[in-house]
């Protein structure tokens, strides 16, 4: 057992120092009925080579995005991550460190978090940001709960353009906490409809841009309407690369911005771990969930960083804590921050422009296919199309021909009556030949 350093002699000597004659004597507090004599019914330990073979066999049974034509988005995006990012996050001092509770020997992590907070605030156009949450969907649920605390109101209005998984995540938490939610009808251009739903009980309005159908929206009017009614505007973004091209939610008047940060620095990972971005106006920060890193000085007057405002958190406030968040996504936030530092202003804008260009090329190729209708008019790198028949069946057929064609909307919401809608995304990793191949096979399958 190469991970366990004690030798049999060590163990015997240590038991002697403790003054007991067997290891069982240290488990004396366990009720006799619950003490297990032998090993549980699972395989015995395996060497490194055996583990590698077993894991590789499982991995081979998955079709990875890099194998060819691939067009899935819907809240998780495939971007190119520079080799530098993965190299740095695997440095021991980042990978194997814990929560920075001793700031004097955790300045590396803390300065990264302070820089991350600044990057996220800049990107979203907000005054402050926290040091990350689990992912975009849980961040959205926390934002709704925060809005109820700030406004002392009890209802969240959710646009029909919000990712259905996010809606379900918000609903789960809101239901438990006794917060009412109102989800508006699913629609491709849905954001404006929320204005009419705002009333005196509304704590917040949740909108997404680009929304789950890819539609990019100017939410300025919604922000004004929400704020005039005493509610907060929560803007969700599942594709943060879009912020390199589009106006930031802050510029459009958002009170809270939550986003999935996976697109920058983090791989697809079958859905996690991801990195939840959370930014808000400064006046609300003491109601915000999650960790915050702040600037301070040390005994010599030198600038340093510490976790701060933790009096909001569970370990101190217990049943009066402001959130359910304990950990954050430190390592994923680090990956985000490194990739963002590599891109810089120039690189991010360029990356966003390429994404948009690739998606337009995809749009043009698919629009030329008889039977395909493009549903989203203003999009960044993802849009919805209508296909003849069931999109889910079409996707299975195309998968058999080597194309991962996108996400059928029915996979996100089976009851919206949109079984013939397919969400397709393109990024800088989409090659022209991928698009050509997709369009050719799709045309052939539809014609059959």
């Amino acid at each position, binding site marked *: 057992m190469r991970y366990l350093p004690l030798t049999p002699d060590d163990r015997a000597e240590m038991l002697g120092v403790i003054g007991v004659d067997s290891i069982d004597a240290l488990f004396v507090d366990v*009720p006799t009925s619950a003490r297990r004599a032998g090993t549980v019914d699972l395989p015995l330990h395996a060497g490194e080579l055996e583990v590698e073979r077993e894991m590789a066999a499982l991995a081979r049974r998955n079709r990875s995005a890099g194998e060819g034509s691939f067009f899935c988005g819907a809240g998780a995006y495939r971007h190119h991550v520079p080799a530098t990012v993965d190299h740095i996050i695997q440095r021991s001092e980042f990978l194997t460190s814990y929560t920075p509770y001793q700031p004097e020997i955790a300045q590396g992590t803390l300065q990264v978090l302070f820089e991350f907070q600044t990057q996220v605030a800049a990107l979203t156009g907000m005054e402050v940001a926290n040091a990350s949450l689990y992912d975009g969907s849980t961040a959205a649920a926390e934002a709704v709960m925060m809005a109820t605390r700030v406004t002392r109101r009890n209802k969240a209005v959710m646009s029909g353009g919000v990712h259905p998984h996010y809606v379900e995540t918000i609903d789960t938490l809101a239901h438990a906490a006794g917060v009412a939610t109102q989800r508006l009808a699913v629609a491709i251009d849905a954001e404006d409809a929320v204005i009419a739903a705002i009333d005196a009980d509304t704590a917040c309005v949740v909108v997404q841009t680009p929304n789950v159908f890819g539609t990019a929206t100017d939410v300025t009017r919604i922000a004004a309407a929400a704020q005039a009614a005493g509610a907060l505007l929560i803007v969700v973004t599942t594709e943060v690369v879009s912020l390199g091209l589009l106006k930031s939610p802050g510029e459009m008047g958002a009170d809270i911005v939550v986003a999935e940060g996976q697109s920058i620095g983090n791989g697809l990972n079958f859905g996690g*771990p991801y990195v939840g971005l959370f930014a808000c106006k400064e006046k609300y920060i003491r109601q915000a969930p999650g960790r915050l890193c702040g600037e301070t*000085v040390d005994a010599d007057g030198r600038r340093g960083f510490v976790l*701060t405002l933790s009096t909001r958190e569970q370990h101190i406030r217990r049943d009066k804590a402001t959130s359910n968040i304990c950990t954050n996504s430190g390592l994923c936030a680090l990956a985000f921050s490194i990739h963002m530092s590599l891109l810089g202003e120039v690189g991010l804008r360029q990356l966003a422009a390429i994404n948009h260009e690739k998606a337009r090329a995809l749009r043009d190729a698919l629009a030329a296919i008889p039977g395909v209708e493009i549903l989203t008019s203003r999009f960044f790198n993802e849009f919805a199309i209508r296909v003849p028949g069931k999109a889910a069946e079409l996707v299975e057929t195309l998968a058999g021909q080597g194309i991962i064609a996108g996400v059928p909307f029915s996979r996100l919401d089976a009851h919206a009556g949109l079984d013939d809608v397919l969400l397709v995304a393109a990024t800088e990793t989409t090659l022209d030949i991928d698009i050509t191949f997709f369009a050719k096979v799709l045309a052939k399958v539809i014609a059959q």
Partner: protein
Amino acid sequence: MSMNSVGRPTRPETANDTVDTHATLTGARGLLQDEALIFERDGWHKTGVDLPEASAPADDLNSLLRTAPIGLPGLSEPEVVRHYVRLSQKNHAIDLALYPLGSCTMKHNPRLNEKMARLPGFADIHPLQPQSTVQGALELMDRLAHWLKTLTGMPAVALTPKAGAHGEMCGMLAIRAAHEAKGQGHRKTVLAPTSAHGTNPATAAFVGYTVVEIAQTADGRVDLADLESKLGDHVAAIMVTNPNTCGLFERDVVEIARLTHAAGAYFYCDGANFNAIVGRVRPGDLGVDAMHINLHKTFSTPHGGGGPGAGPVVLSEALAPFAPTPWLVHGEDGFALVEHAGEAGAETAFGRMSAFHGQMGMYTRAYAYMLSHGADGLRQVAEDAVLNANYLKARLSDVMSPAFPDGPCMHEALFDDSWLEGTGVTTLDFAKAMIDEGFHPMTMYFPLVVHGAMLIEPTETESKQELDRFVVALRALAHAAKSGDVERFKGAPYHAPMRRLDETLAARKPRLRWKPVAEAPLAAE
């Protein structure tokens, strides 16, 4: 006495008075470089990536286009590498030395796990690509579930919670759904011992319960009489950490479960400390209804300076029908996911915890660790974790004061500050002095039920030699504190990248981001 006059110290006890009195011109300390914020460097118009040109965006986006700068600095690749490498060198890490944070389980993070998680077949697959194209990933989730169920003796597991506290929420939501299904929705109280993790009452309150505390006995366990007096048909659940945060096994756990069930309530167990019992004790045999398992603690997935975590929750028969979606099912064509509550196969699911399927990247790491250890190795894990903690307790008890001296502890040894009484040294001072000796401090001031608590958890991946080194250092520090060498402690740390940081100032004048317009430097108050 200067370093030069005595030569290089070779024993830890002799490295006493090497206070750094020579300020450098740059702020750097030899190889430890002073590193400005990334925003304070020149060269905002560079980029560290090479991307092709792109055409102008489509006209229909005109009114939506960003006009103002974002405000992000740009650097070349070598500049970025150097920035982060310099920062990394200001961190303590388990790969550098012992990290004895109690209740946090900082153990060896095998690199094999990292390599496995990065196989493209796991790392480069999309959560919503056709299920027929991810059968290996779904099988891995199924196998991980099988291991967790077997090790805990529980029939079901919900994999999706993204951290321990998220797992607690999952368990409490399942309990709530189960009560509602039985027409017992009026049960609105959750009992939690005073020694519980702060996340326990926080979670219960967050999902709408009123929290009532249960007292603790003098020997650090749940007070059964107090528990009995507070149980009733208004109680939904009890939340108990076992082994508890005092590092002790709840001897009466079976009786706690019996009383709880007799009152019609469920037993939630905080499984953060599962590494103390894995392979030796199955929580299912104790009467537990729900328990989260921090994969980053018991199964070695790295914590990366704060996360990601992963908190799968094992469930009893009574709670299994209410697990959140997605549900993994095994059909004729292989594995499939039922993704929405109410759908065939997941009619009774309480809802969804997050988008997608949880922390797949952590499942791969945890599963590789499980395979490496096997049933025999995991049992040894619990034995060595407990042995190491009791060894430290035995070797430090004559110079420090164990909070619960009688009987063995489990995977962590808890001391209080009574042994520091009259020395002028506090728990915090002592912790900071440990930094100067090259060790990460233990957990301080937790659990709250012990005054000036010092909670030391060595874990199973520390050798006897490393523990002995730690013991020598702590004993020497203890003697220094008792002999009146207060300055060593009050001024500590002297040798860390930073001296002691002013945490009060940070909270009083929150400065949470860098701003483009230079602000006046913060000054100590």
